[in-house]
Structure formats: C-alpha cells, structure tokens
C-alpha cells in the first residue's frame, strides 16, 4: 500500500514536471519569431506570404512575420537604427556591395558551410553563386533573376539574307551595315544595332558591352577598367562600329546621326511604337521582362499567347572573336536576401532564408507571374509550361559564362553609372583618349572602394 502510494506520488510528480517542461518548451517555441521585410505588394506579396506559410507549417513553433512594401532605403535605415528585420531583400546585385560592405547584412559563410548549410554551386546557377559575394564576403542568398540577352527581328534579318543571329562582334557589324538604311536627307531611317549608352539601356549598356568582350570589372580589390585591356578593346570596337555603320567611316558624322536617331526613339513602355516593334531597329540588347511587350500584350500572363507585334528571337550576346567561348551567355542580375546585423535570431532566420531561396513552388509561381527565372538549377523551379521562344532565356541563365560583374562596396553601384557616363562621353566624341579615361575612371572607383571600406 505504502509502495503504491509512493509510485502514485512519483507518477504525479513526473506528470507535473513533464507538463511544466512541455509548457516551458511551448513558451520557448512561441518566442521563435523571424521578421521578413520585402518590397513586394499585391500578388507578389501574396505569393511570398504563401511561401512563408509553407515554411511555418514545416517548422512548428516558428512564427514568421512578413511585412511588404518596404524598400531598400527603409530597410537600411531600420537596420542602422537597430530595429531592422531579421531578413531583408535587395532588388538587384548592384546594391549588394552596399548591404554587405557596410555590414548591414551578416557574413553567411559559417551558416552555409554549417550543419544545416547549403551546397551553393549544386543548388544555384553559376552567375547567382558568384553574385552573392561582395568584398569577398558571401552575405546573401539569391532569389529570382532578370536576364539580359540579345533580341533580333527574324523577318528583317531574313530579308537581309541572315538565317541566324550574329555570333561575333564582327558578324554584328556586317549584319548592321546591311540592315541600316538612310533617308534621302542622310538621316538614319532604320538601324541594325546600336552600341549606344542611353538607347533603351537601363544604364547597363556599358555592362553589356563589357560582357561581349569578356572584360573584367575587378582584379582583387581594385578596378580592372584600366588593367583589363578588353575594356579599351570594347570601346575601340564601339567607335569603329559607329564610324563604319553610321558614318560611312566618319565617326563624328555617325555619332551625330545616332544622337538624332536615338532622340527620335519610340516610347519604351508604349507597347506600340517601341523601335524594336516598329522595325526602326533590327537587333538590340534587352531584358527578359521586355519580351511580353513585344507580344500581343504587355501582361506577362499573356506571353504564352505571343502572336508577336514583331517576329523576334532571343539569343546570347554576340561576342568578340577572342571571347568566343562566351557565346550563348548574357548578363544576369538577381534579387537577393540577407540576414541583418543585429538579428537576434540568426539560426531561425537562416532556416527561413534557406527555405525561401530553395522553394521551387515560390520560384515557379514567381517566374510564371513576373517572367523572372529562378536562380535554382533544378528544372522544377521552372513553370511546367512556357512558350518555346522563351527557352533561350533559360539557356542564357544556365550558361557558365553568364554573369553579373563582381561587386564591391561602391554605394549604389556607382562604378556602373560612372562607366556608363564614360561610354556616353566616348560615343559623343567628348573623350579623346579612352585608355587615359579608363585609367582615370579606375582610379576614381578605387578611391570610392577605399573610402567605403
């Protein structure tokens, strides 16, 4: 009897103790909160939140607070004030230097190589793996991509006797000479291709030009504008192209004619008088998200019904003869996310961030709605159905030489706008010596890097 009473007491104590432990565990679980700030709204935020819901379901006890419509500047200010989120988003690689270099986002090396880590090169495409590093610190995981490729008007090329898009810069010049026509007053009527800073360029023309020649942006911690001769080669080609195609050998004449031609370009977002649609230009650099504009509607959901305002094709950039192995590649940028400095729950933030970066359902929905290919290598991250003409975009994404340039902390990617300014000055004939100008530019970029580090 006494024994029974003792057992009963022990059992009661054990029950109470286990309840207390369970309650304590529950209380601890309830405090596992991760805050995610994103710039998304509307349908995009709904897709994002659905992914977050999936992560919560897969991780009981994890409470993820998603806040949309918060841009980069607000995130940065909050991180600085010490009340930032655990995870925030940057739209575009160019800003990575700013997030990483200033320490706003934490170095992820330990988490990536840790127990719950991630094999970057086996999970994401090469460009994305390279693009999540700034100042030699990997502080971001990639999300979706924007892909820049070479668009060509199949009808115009065919009429000029070309069955395929140009593969090299030499071919590009030949094609353009044949495709360019002039009015009776000598002005340009229709152009083949414009290697021109500011022609529908989103300030990235110089980056695309560099990609065609395989020019490097950095060597170690320093700008390679001066040390990598391919930059000078690229600019020399641009000048030669303008002279030969548009100026009949006279660069100044070609430059002036092109300035006027560019001034008369059709609206970029009008959907009707865009130069590529009207046939005013036959070939151009452009982003994957411009494709629907060239179809029946500018709504991405209609892209699969592309009856084409213009019969176009997409390919990799033509490349210089010395860079032929890069043919098929393009430029690619990513939306990225990182863990804020001051995050009190890094371990859980990593769980959430890794899950978001590898969520194929999110990737498929996002690509389907926005035309933004995933950074994931797996084919499961692509929509089940997409139009055949869109395949080259995925091919460019996967090409090993497709890249964004390496990133350093130069504020809001100042080196890009500075190079673009130089390209514009050069094409206008305001810069006499490109080598001196590139050396000067490299020096200025290096000064910025030193100042920001």
């Amino acid at each position, binding site marked *: 009897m006494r024994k029974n009473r003792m057992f009963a007491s022990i059992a009661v104590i054990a029950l109470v103790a286990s309840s207390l432990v369970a309650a304590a565990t529950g209380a601890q679980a309830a405090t596992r909160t991760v805050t995610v700030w994103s710039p998304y709204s509307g349908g995009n935020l709904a897709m994002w939140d659905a992914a977050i819901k999936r992560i919560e379901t897969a991780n009981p006890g994890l409470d993820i607070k998603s806040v949309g419509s918060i841009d980069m500047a607000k995130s940065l200010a909050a991180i600085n004030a010490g009340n930032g989120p655990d995870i925030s988003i940057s739209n575009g690689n160019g800003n990575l230097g700013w997030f990483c270099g200033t320490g706003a986002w934490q170095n992820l090396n330990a988490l990536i190589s840790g127990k719950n880590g991630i094999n970057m090169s086996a999970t994401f495409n090469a460009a994305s793996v390279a693009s999540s590093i700034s100042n030699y610190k990997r502080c971001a995981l990639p999300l979706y991509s924007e892909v820049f490729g070479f668009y060509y008007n199949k009808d115009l090329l065919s009429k000029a006797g070309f069955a395929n898009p140009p593969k090299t810069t030499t071919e590009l010049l030949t094609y353009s000479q044949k495709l360019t026509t002039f009015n009776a007053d000598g002005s340009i009527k229709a152009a083949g291709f414009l290697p021109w800073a500011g022609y529908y360029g989103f300030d990235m023309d110089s980056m695309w030009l560099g990609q065609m020649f395989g020019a490097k942006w950095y060597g170690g911690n320093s700008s390679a504008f001066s040390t990598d001769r391919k930059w000078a080669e690229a600019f020399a080609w641009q000048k030669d192209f303008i002279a030969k195609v548009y100026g009949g050998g006279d660069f100044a004449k070609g430059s002036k004619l092109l300035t006027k031609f560019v*001034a008369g370009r059709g609206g970029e977002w009008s959907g009707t008088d865009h130069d590529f649609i009207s046939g005013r230009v036959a070939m151009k650099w452009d982003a994957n998200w411009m494709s629907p504009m060239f179809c029946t509607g500018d709504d991405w959901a209609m892209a699969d019904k592309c009856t084409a305002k213009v019969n176009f094709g997409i390919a990799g950039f033509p490349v210089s003869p010395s860079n032929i192995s890069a043919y098929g590649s393009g430029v690619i940028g990513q939306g990225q996310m990182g863990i804020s400095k001051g995050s009190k729950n890094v371990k859980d933030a990593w769980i959430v961030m890794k899950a978001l970066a590898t969520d194929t359902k999110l990737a498929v929905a996002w690509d389907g709605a926005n035309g933004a290919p995933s950074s994931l290598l797996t084919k499961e991250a692509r929509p089940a159905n997409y139009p055949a003409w869109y395949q080259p975009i995925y091919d460019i994404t996967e090409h090993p030489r497709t890249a964004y340039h390496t990133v350093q902390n130069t504020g809001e990617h100042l080196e890009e706008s500075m190079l673009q300014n130089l390209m*514009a000055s050069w094409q206008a004939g305001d810069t006499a010596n490109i080598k001196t100008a590139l050396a000067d530019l490299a020096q200025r970029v290096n000064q910025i890097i030193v100042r920001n580090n």
Partner: protein
Amino acid sequence: MSLTRAHAISPFKKKGDIAPPRKKLKVPRLFIFLCLSPWLFGIIFFTAYPMVSSFYQSFTKFNLIETPQWVGLDNFHRMFFEDDDFWKALKNTIWISAISIPLRICFAIFTAWVLTKPKRGSSIYRTIFFLPSMVPAVAGTMAFTYIFNPAYGPINKMLEAIGIKEPPFWFMDPAWSKWGLILLGLWGIGDTMIIFLAGLLDVPTSLYEAAELEGASGWQSFRYITLPLMTPVIFFSTVTGVIGSFQYFTQAYVASGQVNDYSHSMYFYATHIYHSAFKAYEMGYASALAWVLLVITLLCTLVILKTQKRWVHYPNGSLFK
C-alpha cells in the same frame, strides 16, 4: 481731453491725438507657450536639430549604417582637392546663376512693362503670362524636353522650316543643354514678373508726366525714372535669384533623366549633394557639401548687400542701412 465716439473708433484720425493706453492683457505664460509650441517644435526639430546634426556630420564619415566616424576636415579637403564632380557641379551652377539671373530680371522687367500697356483685358494678359509659373516644375520640364527634342520636337521643326539646316540638339547636346534650362526658366518667369509689375504700377505717373514736359524720350524716362525706382525690386530678385539658383535641382534632375545626360552637362551643385547622399550614401560628405553651399550663398548675398548702396535707390531709405 475727452475722447469722442469717433475717436474711440479711430483714435488716430486727427493729427496730434494720443492713443489711449492699452490695457495689459493678463494671459498666462503657459498659454502663450502653448500657442507658440507648434512653431517652436517645428523650428527645433525640423530646422535647428537637422542643421546642428548636419554640421556635426560634415566632419564625419557616415554611411547610414555604421556609426559616424570623426574625420576632421577630410570631407572638405576631398571636396576641394580630389572631387572633380564638385568643381564640375560648381562651375555649372555658377554658369546658370550668372546667365539666368540677369536674363530673368531683364525678361521679367520687359514683360511687366509690356503688360502695363494694354488698356483693355490687362488682367487676362497678366494671367496668361503668370500661368506657366504655376505649372509644376516636373511637368514643365518634361514638356520642354519634348518640344525641344531634336528628332520630333516642334521647335526644331520650326527652325528647319525657316532655313536653319542643323538646329541644336538642345537637351541632348552638352553645349546646348543649359540653354534649354535657361529657356525653361524664362518661360516660367511669372512669379518674378508679377513683382516687377507691382513695382512698375507703383511708380508715380506724375514723374513720367514731368519728364514728358521736359521733353524726355521713352528710353530716357525708362533709364532715369523707371529703372532707378525698380532697383529695390531688382535687388530683391537678385538676392532671391542667387539663393534659388544655387539650389537649382528639380528641372535639371528631371531633364537629365529624360535625355540621359551622361555627360553631366546639367549636373548642378544640388544634384551633387543629392548624388552624394542618396546614391553614394555618403551623408557626411553630403553634409559638408551642403555647408559649403550655405557659405557660398551667404558670401554672394553679402556681396550684393554690400554693393546695394551704390546702385539701389530707396525713395524712403533702405531697410538694410
């Protein structure tokens, strides 16, 4: 002396009358403070604090994320000895000030003078000339970049029609872009013009009549009557013009974006401050630039104030003596 009813209503009606002593209002100091508090709050938190803060930041390296680091005079040294964009922006700003301020004043005087002439419908003409100054700067600039577009803009079509074979590329040509901005400024002359119009209408007609009797020509009347009496308005416009032109931003920023002004021909001092703060995220350097701008503007204003004795004619004496 007893006050009549009329005096009570208008105590100063008769010369020599003395105003009745005012009763001292007994208002609690707290109430006065409360009434002033919105203004005090505004001036302390939205003017004084940011000014003191930016003055401190001008001696720091501050990137919004990390704590500001004291760098002494480094920002100022960089500005004057290392930053080519600073000199480019300053040069462009001085250029636009030197050209636009006198042009705006001349154009405003002329327009105001023309508007004093119509005997009928003058208010309609005045409204028409004033209207452009009410157009938002962004909309006005976008319209100008369109009408001055070298390919399809109506201005160049007109110039070509009258025989100018190669009209300028305006905003797309570094050599002409600032002239485009000057024309945009002259188009929106309404605010300055209205001040000159008020000044012109204030000139006693008896002076013109006397001059006419003396046989003065129209030019002589303008030179020796109108212009001297307009000098206080010219002085005011010059001072406000200098302050405004050193802060010139919106039109230049919009036009630059519209035409991709990669050559920085429309890159002004205020653009450089904006660029340093919100593109390069160098708040310390941007603060230093802002303080140098304040000093430059103050110096220019002081020079104008000092020289006014030589050329500004105040019929009733100067406020700035």
